[in-house]
Structure formats: C-alpha cells, structure tokens
C-alpha cells in the first residue's frame, strides 16, 4: 500500500452530551477515490468538517501528508459541502474570484484559472450574471469549479451530484475522474451506492460515530462474500449433497451455499454430474447490500 494523504487516529468529538465521533480511525491512501459512507447522523459531516478544520476534535490525532494537520493545509484541501450555496445578489465571476482568493490565490492567478475552467465547462457566458438568475444545476457547476480551482492535493465532495441532471452529472463525474488521474486524492461522500461502486476504490463506513468498515473495495467485498452461488440448471431436480446446501429455490434458479471446508469445484462437479448447467455464478454482494448488512449488524 502506498502512503496516506490523510490519517485520523482515535478521533473523538462531542457536542455536549452527544458524541458525534467516537474513536474514529480512517486512513486515506494517496491518489485514491475514497468513499465515505454511513447512514444519516453517523458523523460523516463532522469528520469532513474536522478535516477542513472548520471544527477541531476533542481528542485524537490528524495527519495531513505526513505532518500534523495545520492551518496552512487549508489551501491544499478543497471542500464541497452538502449544504452549499452562493451569494444570490453577487455576480458569478466576481463571486468566483472572491472565493478563489479566500483560498489563498492571487487575483491574476485566480482570474486565469477561472477563465480556463469556465471555458472548459462552457459557462463563460454566465460570468456577468447574478447568481439568482441561474438555475440550481448551473449554480452547482460554479460551486464545483470554485472547489477545485486552487488545485488542492485533497478534494472532499459531499453529495456532489445532487441537483444535477444526468447529463451534467456525467460531465462532473468525468471531471472528478480526470482530477483523480492527475493524482488528486478524492474523498467522496454519498448515499448513492451505485456511484460508489462506479468510482471509488476505497471506502470507510461510519455508523453510530464509529468506523465499522475500512479498506479497498475489493477486499471488503471478499470479506462479505459468504461462499454462496446462484445456479441455473436445465432441470428442477437439484438436491443438497455433501458439498452444498440449498438456500432458496425458484423454478430452475437455485441459491446454494458451500458446506464448511468444501471447494467451489467440488460443488460444481457434483452438479455437472447430475444435470446440465445453464449458469453458475458466485454471488458478490453489492455495496448496497454490504452497507445494509454492516449497519444492521452493528
């Protein structure tokens, strides 16, 4: 495993009586697209706010690129919060310049980069419009640009696709993948499991203020497979034997489970010997199933 851009160790954050984070550990590998998952109220937003130094943890240690997280790291992180907006009465260009400068860019640098991005996303004609004249999706595009404009090492997106139509969502997804290819690490928080599957390579699942799962997606999936297979045969007469038991049966489709210590080949051979097989497929859990299982087991 390559080194981590961000590590949180035993992070605790309390709001009065309420514990938002209870000894949370995550470690985000450099260059990864890291899915931060969890049900509502699990503490994801608090964790993202801690990474952005909007709020500080009560205890625990935070490392950014090997050094303790510090004020100057602000310009190396870009954050697109779930609750996001713009000044309605301000002009688009002026506002984008303001927000870029707040991230520490100089005026000329900000202007140059903004023009580049506005051209790239084909929104240059909005430069002198007021934000209130734009649709929600248009405003989201500007927020995306403002988040990535200072070319940070770490980008944090909280529900980046909400408010976008499918076409614009695809454009933004493409931009995120491009940024990732250039080496930017991306933390990606969403409730839409299909997009996690599509773009993340690592995940952390936070539930009830604690990290429940963390690691590369394929390893986690392996962890959640329980040696079950979906078998479709030409006959309806499939019976349990020494190698497997039958979980469910529907017409000629069976879900079977290997018995303790038995191998896939043994089970397959035992079926082939008896009948013709139309399909034999290992059941790999979807992220959605893993999510529900992990949350319910906790």
């Amino acid at each position, binding site marked *: 495993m390559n080194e981590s851009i961000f590590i949180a160790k035993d992070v605790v954050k309390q709001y009065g009586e309420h514990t938002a984070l209870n000894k949370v550990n995550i470690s985000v590998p450099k260059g990864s697209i890291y899915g931060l998952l969890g049900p509502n109220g699990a503490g994801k937003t608090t964790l993202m706010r801690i990474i952005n130094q909007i709020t500080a943890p009560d205890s625990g240690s935070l490392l950014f690129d090997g050094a303790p997280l510090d004020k100057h790291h602000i310009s190396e992180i870009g*954050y697109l*919060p779930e*609750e*996001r*907006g713009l000044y309605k009465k301000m002009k688009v260009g002026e506002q984008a310049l303001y*927000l870029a400068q*707040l991230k520490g860019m100089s005026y000329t640098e900000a202007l140059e980069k903004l023009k580049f991005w506005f051209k790239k996303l084909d929104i240059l004609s909005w430069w002198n419009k007021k934000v209130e004249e734009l649709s929600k999706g248009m405003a989201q595009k500007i927020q995306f640009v*403002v988040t990535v404009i200072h070319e940070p090492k770490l980008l944090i997106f909280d529900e980046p696709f909400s408010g976008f139509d499918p076409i614009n969502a695809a454009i933004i997804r493409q931009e995120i993948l491009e940024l990732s290819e250039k080496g930017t690490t991306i933390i990606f928080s969403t409730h839409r499991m299909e997009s996690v599957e599509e773009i993340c390579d690592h995940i952390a699942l936070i539930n009830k203020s604690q990290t429940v799962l963390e690691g590369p997606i394929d390893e986690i999936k392996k962890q959640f497979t329980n040696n079950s297979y979906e078998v479709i045969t030409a006959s309806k007469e499939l019976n349990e034997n020494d190698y497997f038991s039958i979980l469910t049966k529907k017409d000629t489709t069976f879900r079977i489970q290997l018995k303790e210590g038995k191998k896939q080949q043994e089970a397959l051979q035992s079926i082939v010997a008896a009948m013709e097989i139309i399909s034999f497929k290992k059941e790999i859990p979807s992220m959605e199933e893993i999510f529900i299982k992990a949350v319910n087991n906790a």
Partner: protein
Amino acid sequence: MHKIWLIIKREYLVRVRKKAFIVMTIVGPLLMAALLIVPTYLAEESQELRNIAIEEDGFEFTNQLEDTEFLHFSKIPQEKATLLKEGFTESNYYALLHIEENNFTLYSNQQISLSVSNGIENQLEKIIEHQKLKAAGIDLTILESAESTVNITTKIISEDGNTTNSQAEASMGIGFICGILIYMFIFMYGTMVMRGVIEEKTNRIVEVIISSVKPFQLMMGKILGVALVGLTQFVLWILLTFAIATIAELLFMDVSSMTTELSSAQQSILLSEISSLTGGINLAQIFLSFLFYFLAGYLMYSSLFAAVGSAVDAEADTQQFVLPITIPLILAFILIQPIMENPDGTLAFWMSMIPFTSPVIMMVRLPFGVANWELALSIGILVSSFILTTWFAGKIYRTGILMYGKKASYKELWKWLSYKA
C-alpha cells in the same frame, strides 16, 4: 490578515453599491437640510404685519389693545364687520376680533397662526387682570414699580481660575444630536450585520467560506466592513448636508445685502458671539469621543447582533434574542431627556459607565463637561466589554452558523459556549 481584508472589501463594496444605500445617502441630508431650513423660512414668514379688525360695543378693550410690531388693531363698525365676515379675501384684514362682554372670538378665512392668537390672548388677559386689580383698590403704579426682571449669567470656573460662559442650550443641542446619532447608527448597522449573517446562513454559503477562513475572521470582516459603510454614510451626510444648506442659503436668503450691511467690526462681534455660545464646550474632545463611542458601541452591539443572526434560520425568528439586546439601547434613548436636565446626577453617572448605555449617554453628558477620570473609566469599561462580547459572540457564532433547521433556545446557546472550536 490578507483574508480578512478580502472579506471587509466584499462586505463594504456590496453594501455601498446597493441602491438603498445611495438613496439613503442622498435623501438623508435633504431631510436634515429641510429640518434646518424650513423653521427659519416659516419664522420669517410669520414676521409680517397683520391687521386685526375689532368689533365691539363701546371702546373698553379697543382703547387698551396696543399695536405691536406684528399686529395692528383697528375698530370697525357693526355693518362693516358683517360684510367682512362674508368677504375676507378682498379686505386687507387678517382676522376679526369679536368682543361681547368677556367673550372673545377670532374670525378669519384661514387657519389663524398660533402666534397671532397667543399675542391677542396675552394682551386681553393683562387688560382684564388690570381691571380686577383696580376694582380691588390696588395702585397700578406701585405694582409696576414692583415688577422686576432678573437675568442670571451662568459661568463655569475651571481649576486654574478662568471663567467661561456656560451655555446649557448649546450643550443640550450638541449632546442630544450626538446621542441620537449614536443610537441610530448602532441600531441601523447592528441589524445590518445581523441580516448579513442570516443571509449567509440561509444561502448556505457559510460552510464554503469557513472552509477557507476562520469563523471569527468572517464575523469580524463583516462587522468591520459594515462599520466602514456606516462611516462612509456618516461622512457623506455631513458633507452633503453642508453643501445643501449652503446652496439653499444662497438661494433663499439675500446674502449680498447681508455682507454689505455687516461691517468688519460687526462681523467680528458676530464671530465672538458664536464662539461664546459654544465656549466652555470642548468641540475637539466631543468629536473624538463621538468617533470612539460610535465605533466601540457599534462593535459591541454588532457582535451580539451577529451572534443572534447565527442562531436563527430566518429574520422572523430573531425577535426573542434581539429584544434583550435592544432594551438597554432603547432605555438609553428614553433617558436622554432626563439626563440632559441633570447631567451630573447619579443616574447619569452610572448610565455613562454601563457599557450598554454609555455610548449614547456619555455623548449626551460630554458637552456639559465630564471629569477626565469619568471619561477614562467609561472608555476603559467599554473597550473591555466589547472585547468580552466579541469573544462571547464569536463562540456562539461559530457553532450557530452550522446549525441548520434547528430552533435555538437560550439553553442551547449556553451549551454552544462550551463546545470546542
């Protein structure tokens, strides 16, 4: 530091460019100039000589009513009086005084000015008084010789023995204007800060911004930006008021005749009169104190207003928190009058020490003269309390701006104070 400048700049420019600001900046001085000019104009108008007709059986009152600078009385016969009542406009009479026994009625075709009816009333009262005194057998000449007028000259002796004429009227005027201005500015710009905070919260831009700057920087940037808007408006008002007043004076008053009439000697007398009118009042001290109390009072109150703005989701919910903040300010406003009457009393002293009322009350007291130690103490208390309130407000603010859709209670606010940043 660079970032807080960016915030101040944005907050300032956004507000100064607003139409409402430009309109207020122009309309304000027009109103003030009108307040200065209209009374003088009205006073001049009332100075014209008015003919009053008298309708009376006999000459009992007619003979005793004396013409004054502005009133000329003349008796007219009964028939003419009836005619006059039907057609005032053609006659050169302003009003008709009808006397019957001790009943007096004043007729006119227009609203009778208060000064005219008061003038006539006073004369009639005196006449009747004299009649009664005579009937009681009191010699009028003795009464007249007993009448006396006293004019007290008030002088203030300073510690080095110099005396200056004290001018209560001028002190009152200056104190009143300064107190009202500070009250107005704190209210206007304090709520402007609060609305700005609510706007950022409802727009949901606040989380984007505080991922780049500290919440305290955002709050202070806004407060200072709005303070500059206030100062800009104030300076523009003063300049424009003077400009408008000067232009109006040139237009409405015959300046050429004034300047030729006034010889240089007279002019110097006029100047010395003006300086004696404000003599004993340290204008430089008042100006500097005004700037200080305006800024410090505004800083203290606006940080509290910012905290309120951060705790609510909409302006409609601010009421319960704004009220306790504004009560001391309104109290100070109400107490301006009594404190002007007794500027050195216990109430005045304490009100100019308590930081929530001192910006208004100290400005009311200052023109009357305040001991240096009192002024220093008041300034010291105000400075330390605005540091305290901004610290306190900052803690509420940084938690409040990130609480969406949660209605805050006082208990909740208290808890926020204990949260770690």
